[in-house]
């Protein structure tokens, strides 16, 4: 594997195609479980482990599984790993197990895992698929942890269970607060992402056409037009 490929896979999973903030997948656990940062980390790591295992196994079996039973096979594999995670969590981390509740078994039908299995693991080699599983999972984990931390700080006045102050806005621990926080975080992340991409494009454009002093607008259309003029 080349360094560029590794960078691409990692940047895709963590930022460019972040399942929570860019693709808006796995919304159900994101909204329901982010009442605390700890829940976010717990759910995120559980999903990461399942993504890693399922992506690796599906990639290994991609030439054996017939196309006609692709989805049932993926679901069977994912369900097995979810059950293993449930058993391990119930045995060793019972508090987190009860906090995650029904959302833990529901990982079986989480569109992030099925989506990566279908669109990546079933078409790519094992190492690439494993890395994709790890980085997509970590992308999901940091997004959930961040939303959880914001809601916990504002809604409960604490972070990772440690009390910061007595000031609380209960709205942030409610379902409406979850939608509000999620929306604001998506908007901020995408705004920041777009501005970084823009700056990068502007830099590349300047390198290609150093004599042009233009204020490059957001979209490719205008960029193409300017490029045509430059030619």
């Amino acid at each position: 594997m080349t360094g560029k490929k590794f960078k691409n896979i990692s940047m895709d999973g963590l930022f460019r195609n972040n399942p929570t903030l860019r693709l808006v997948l796995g919304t159900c656990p994101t909204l329901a479980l982010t009442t605390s940062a700890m829940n976010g980390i717990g759910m995120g790591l559980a999903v990461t482990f399942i993504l890693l295992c399922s992506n690796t196994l599906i990639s290994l079996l991609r030439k054996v599984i017939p196309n006609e039973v692709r989805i049932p096979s993926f679901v069977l594999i994912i369900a097995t790993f979810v059950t293993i995670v449930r058993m391990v969590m119930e045995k060793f981390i019972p508090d987190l197990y009860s906090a995650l509740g029904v959302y833990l078994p529901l990982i079986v039908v989480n569109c992030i895992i099925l989506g990566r299995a279908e669109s990546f693991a079933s078409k790519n080699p094992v190492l690439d698929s494993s890395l994709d599983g790890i980085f997509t999972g970590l992308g999901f984990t940091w997004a959930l942890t961040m939303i959880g931390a914001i809601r916990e700080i504002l809604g409960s006045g604490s972070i990772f269970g440690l009390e910061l102050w007595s000031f609380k806005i209960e709205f942030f621990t409610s379902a409406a607060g979850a939608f509000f926080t999620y929306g604001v975080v998506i908007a901020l992340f995408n705004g920041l992402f777009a501005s970084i991409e823009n700056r990068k494009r502007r830099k590349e454009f300047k390198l290609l056409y150093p004599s042009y002093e233009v204020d490059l607008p957001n979209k490719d259309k205008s960029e193409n037009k300017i490029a045509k003029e430059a030619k």
Partner: protein
Amino acid sequence: MTVKQFFKSTAFKCILVLTCIALVAGGLLAILNDVLYISPEERTQRAIKKIYGKEVGFTELNVAGENGEYAQFSSNQYGNIDNAFKLEDGNYLIKSTGTEGYKGGSVTMWIVAKFQDGQFQGLDKVIVEGYEKQTLMSNFKASFYEVYTSNNDHILGGGMFGNASSDGVMGNLTSGATFSSNAVNRSINCALVYIRNVLATGGVQ
């Protein structure tokens, strides 16, 4: 289609692959289930730790008595006593289910009964264990449950809990969830009947 054709067909391959995956997955889960098994004693210990806040030794009591002599108290007009534990510090932990909730459902509560030198001192903690058909249980605030633990004079005076304040019944109601409130009250009352008639008299040990 001949047998040979069937074995060469995609349908057979599909069945074979799915069966193999299911068998391997089933075998793996069976082994892990055995390895990661949680015994009923461990579950009880965990539940006690969660409710009590610390690990404490316990003895499970036979709620109806050796010969069923306390059955009328363990299954009374308010509901049923599911489990009772004597803790090593002298207190009792009771799991009680109150009936006649919303749509005929029930509410199960864990109740810590304080005892000193064998004398009942009141309720220390009440925690919801679970419920059936009660859709508004999330509306219940901590103050609703605090009524049971902050009125030990009322309890020691023989009082009960209910929706209306009459005949020694202390009113405790969450607005809009009358039936669920009633089921919680009945669960506590069920435990009180058992405590007063069995535990406080030195019945089951």
